[in-house]
């Protein structure tokens, strides 16, 4: 059962969709999020990367700073700046 993921920046929604796995780097280190993860709020490192495994292939987004918020509804990446580098 995939989870809903949204990568949003203040100026636009960068990417939304379903993913089976998400990997991001917080201040504490790399963290992997699978569907039904416990609610979590983390601070992302500057100049980091968020990798998603989706049904249609992998998506990698360059994310500079921001937060990851995991709730029962899905995962939100709140980034000050983000862009998709591979996949769509």
């Amino acid at each position, binding site marked *: 059962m995939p989870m809903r993921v949204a990568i*949003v920046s203040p100026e636009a929604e960068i990417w939304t969709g379903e993913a089976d796995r998400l990997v991001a780097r917080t201040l504490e280190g790399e963290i992997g999020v699978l569907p039904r993860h416990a609610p979590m709020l983390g601070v992302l490192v500057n100049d980091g990367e968020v990798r998603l495994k989706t049904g249609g292939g992998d998506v990698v987004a360059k994310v500079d700073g921001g937060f990851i918020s995991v709730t029962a509804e899905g995962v939100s990446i709140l980034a000050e700046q983000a862009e998709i580098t591979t996949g769509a």
Partner: protein
Amino acid sequence: MAGQLRVYRRRIRSVKSTQKITRAMELIAASRIAKAQSRVAASRPYADEITRVISAVASQTTVDHPLTTERPNPTKAAVLVVTSDRGLAGGYSSNALRTANELVELLRSENKEALLYVIGRKGVGYYRFRGRPIEADYTGFSEPPTYADAKAAGEALIERFTREEDPVDEIHLVYTEFVNTLTQTAVARRILPMVLEETSEPTDTVPPLYEFEPSAEDVLDALLPRYVESRLYTALLESAASESAARRRAMKAATDNADELIKTYTRAANSARQDAITQEISEIVGGADALASAE
């Protein structure tokens, strides 16, 4: 008289060319409203999400963060006024400035000194002309503002708020809310110390119990400035939409006025032309009579 007629024709030409300009500006402003509104819509997911996260964090932690704590004896307040860079937008900037002045008066009556932070050349010009000191000004981005612009102003304000020596105790924001294309209202809001706003949709669900990475304090430390910047960015976007709407309305009024003027001058020119012809005829008749009686 022929001279009179020429003067009217010249006026009509001049009004017509001015009207072309105002009509073009009206159309440009109208298209900018739509763009500005779509920018407001694009910024909403982030703003909503950050508000949701912040209320969730605030509801389950008892952390006293400097950005949310009321100072015991506030004596200094910063007022950030959002105005436009360019004129010809009707009462847009002056409404914002009037609201700002009311706020400054109110703060003064509460024995708080108001420090001015100004966005937009119009506001800067207004205060410079009156010789009022400006703490900092930010210009050149009233249309369209970017997040980086909001961040620059936001960081300066947060720094001023949190610094050890001579800090401000409150930060207020004056901007123009975009109600719809006909109505824009200048509003004053306090952004710091922060009062957490409830999200627009009613939340029946209990906010999730978050785990924090690294810790609640660190997350809040990083989150609150972003929240302030996001609020500021939203205000800038709304102001930009309001500015375009105000300009469109002002330019529409100018175009309509030009129509009215052209109509009046055309009538005057016509009657001047008739007068000239009548006079010419009577001169010819008079001349012919004079010649006939002379023979």
